């Protein structure tokens, strides 16, 4: 279930309360987010849409612990990340969040295998265990035969699949995808969206995705609209068979 009214129960995986984010630019204070509430249960696939500058990416940054709010709190699986120190937050991200970026952001001098392995280097896993996890993640995204390829030897869609493998390899609590299909052609975009849907339906992953693409948003179980930093609309998810509910 997804709620934006601030009345969600304590069972929500992600819980944001009264989130404000503002910046000062040239003496003027710009409010990016204002009093945002959000409750997301585990296994949800949420899409955020809205015009440029509406605060979509800012929400992801705050929920993923990359940025701190001007006011309000964010809790994930019971941990209040807004109360964590910078160092603790870094450790928390490594354990709980998988990031997928629009520009893929792979390390160009590392092979697909090494890119996917990066999050695991921070764990106490042995080399053999890491290998098992990396190969598993690449198998999920359908690139087990490309693991020795470097990013420049892959298509955009393949690069993004490697990025998804990197995001899921450490089995994070949830994935944050910022315009994951923004740089892809239709066919590749569909492949990526199929993959994300698969991760939700078959592997029970929780995904929060920012997108400009209505076709991408259609894949989500719930769609949230942002305008000038306020969640103004929530659509009931379309996959009623999963029994999900959006409450505005």
């Amino acid at each position: 279930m997804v709620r934006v009214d601030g009345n969600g129960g304590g069972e929500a995986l992600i819980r944001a309360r009264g989130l404000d984010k503002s910046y000062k630019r040239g003496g003027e204070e710009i409010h990016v987010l204002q009093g945002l509430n959000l409750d997301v249960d585990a296994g949800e696939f949420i899409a955020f849409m809205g015009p440029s500058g509406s605060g979509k990416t800012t929400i992801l940054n705050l929920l993923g612990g990359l940025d701190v709010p001007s006011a309000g709190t964010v809790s994930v699986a019971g941990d209040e990340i807004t109360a964590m120190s910078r160092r603790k937050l870094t450790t928390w991200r490594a354990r709980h969040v998988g990031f997928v970026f629009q520009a893929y952001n792979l390390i160009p001098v590392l092979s697909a295998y090494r890119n996917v392995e990066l999050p695991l280097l921070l764990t106490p896993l042995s080399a053999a265990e890491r290998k098992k996890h990396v190969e598993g993640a690449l198998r999920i995204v359908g690139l087990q035969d490309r693991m020795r390829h470097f990013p420049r030897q892959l298509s955009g869609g393949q690069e993004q699949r490697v990025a998804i493998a990197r995001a899921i390899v450490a089995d994070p609590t949830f994935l944050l995808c910022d315009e994951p299909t923004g740089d892809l052609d239709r066919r590749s975009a569909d492949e990526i969206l199929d993959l994300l849907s698969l991760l939700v339906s078959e592997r029970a992953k929780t995904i929060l995705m920012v997108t400009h693409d209505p076709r991408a948003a259609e894949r989500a179980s719930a769609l949230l609209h942002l305008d000038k930093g306020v969640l103004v609309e929530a659509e009931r998810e379309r996959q009623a068979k999963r029994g999900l509910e959006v409450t505005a």
Partner: protein
Amino acid sequence: MKFLPLLLANLRRKKVRTALTIGSFMVAMFLFGLLAAVRAGFRQGVEVAGADRLVVIGRTGLIQPLPIPYMQRIRRLAGVKDVAHSTWFGGIYQDPKNFFPQFVIVPEDWQRLYPEYRVADGEWRDFLADRQGIVIGQKLAQRFGWKIGDHVPLKAPGYLGGTSWDFNVRAIYRGTRPQDDEGQLWLQHRYFYEKAPRYWQGMVGWYIVRVSDPGQALTVLKAIDKEFANSASETRTQTESAFAASFMKQMGNIEFLILAIGSIVFFTLLLVTGNTMAIAVRERTAELAVLKAIGYSDRFVLALVLAESLLIAAIGGAIGLWFARGMAARDITSGILPTYLSGAALAAGAAVALGTGFLAGLLPGVSAMRLQVVDALRRV
């Protein structure tokens, strides 16, 4: 070790740039090594000086010979354990550029006073048996390709008549320490006094004195100078290390010159490498931001940048010092100085290289450490 692929991959990112930066370190450390070797050559006399040896020269300097009877008078002084004398020969082998030190010695005395030089027993006997025999250092032998039994003519300087003197290589000596000068030639006093002009008869260049107790060296040297005070040939006695140091100073402040050149080279290297590392980090802003996003700490990012810089410094420094060591072992000063690169100089070179690498990576590393993920990703 598990982060090594990441580190090495970053170095392979711009191969030419990495190679040039390593090359900068290599050249700088090669130069450092050579300067250190030359400095060691200048300081060699000081470093090899025996703590228990004094040098007695004429009060006005080495050009003033001293009478041979002084030897007995010095020997009788309290605190004196042994005495030998020597004279500078200064012969020319083929060309004045082929300079090397040549000492007239009394073999038995010399052997007692300088036990750090080793000669095979058989060769030493051959040397004693041949009044025209000479002992040469191993490096001198290598320099001119001389072998035992070779005939070596030297043209004596004008104050010794300017004629050609003939010698036979009878022995080759080796130092027992790396800093020992193996570029000298020793000739027998018997042959010298046979051929030297009359005014050299009964005169020597200087005395070498061994004291019974190095702690009493000051007392002994004062006693020696007092013994010959107000005589026709007054003396100036110094410890061997002070003598070598004053000899070195006559050539100017070489140490300052070497230090100044070295400092300029390393300051330039620091600027060049620091700039290179700054560019390398700036180019990877997004990647570093992604590393931080997926859980790599600020300190890890700092360590990664520093490790890259240190690895470049270590590789370039090691190659440069290795070449310098090889070069120093050769006769780079045409026999004027016994150059060598000691373990301490190599360690200092390694420390300088790593220190420069650390400083060069520090600012870009701190900048990478402070990088805000959100800001960096927004710039992509």
